[in-house]
């Protein structure tokens, strides 16, 4: 393939932010993945968005997320992320994916 395709190789051992089909946002270090976008995340935590209070972080640890349940895998820019004040961010949780 000319462009090599949109694989996740370049993101291994980097901090990524995963948005799941049920609208959750999980941040962790990408340790592995496969053809079906199944993903292994280390040192992961969930960022829970709400309109009542700032973003809450729940520690999850080592996680495997099934590819079927993944919407977006974002490369977390550490500089942008450290400048982000999560305690002041308020938003509705993302809506679930409706197929």
């Amino acid at each position, binding site marked *: 393939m000319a462009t090599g395709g949109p694989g996740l190789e370049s993101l291994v051992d980097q901090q990524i932010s995963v948005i799941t089909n049920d609208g959750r946002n999980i941040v962790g270090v990408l340790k592995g993945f496969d053809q079906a976008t199944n993903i292994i995340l280390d040192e992961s935590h969930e960022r829970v968005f709400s309109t009542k209070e700032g973003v809450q972080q729940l520690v999850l640890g080592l996680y495997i997320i099934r590819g079927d349940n993944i919407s977006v895998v974002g490369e977390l820019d550490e500089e942008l992320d450290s400048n982000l004040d999560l305690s002041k961010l308020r938003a509705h949780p*993302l809506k679930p994916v409706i197929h």
Partner: protein
Amino acid sequence: MLFFSYFKDLVGKEVTVELKNDLAIRGTLHSVDQYLNIKLENTRVVDQDKYPHMLSVRNCFIRGSVVRYVQLPTEGVDIDLLHDATRREARGG
């Protein structure tokens, strides 16, 4: 295969991908694969005030199965060519 080839020709162009959870992400098309998974660079969420969930993300991988629409640049579409190609494919080759 037709749309896979079509999207490969759009690499490098600016597109907006709307997902099935209503999130819309704009960025430069970096690559596509057979599942129409998409990788975007220099991304920004279209309505950042409503969706601040990806504020620290500049590059992302979008799973093909959650894409609802891809908004294309006008100059990226040769309508006559696409018409012919889709008709040819519908006829079976």
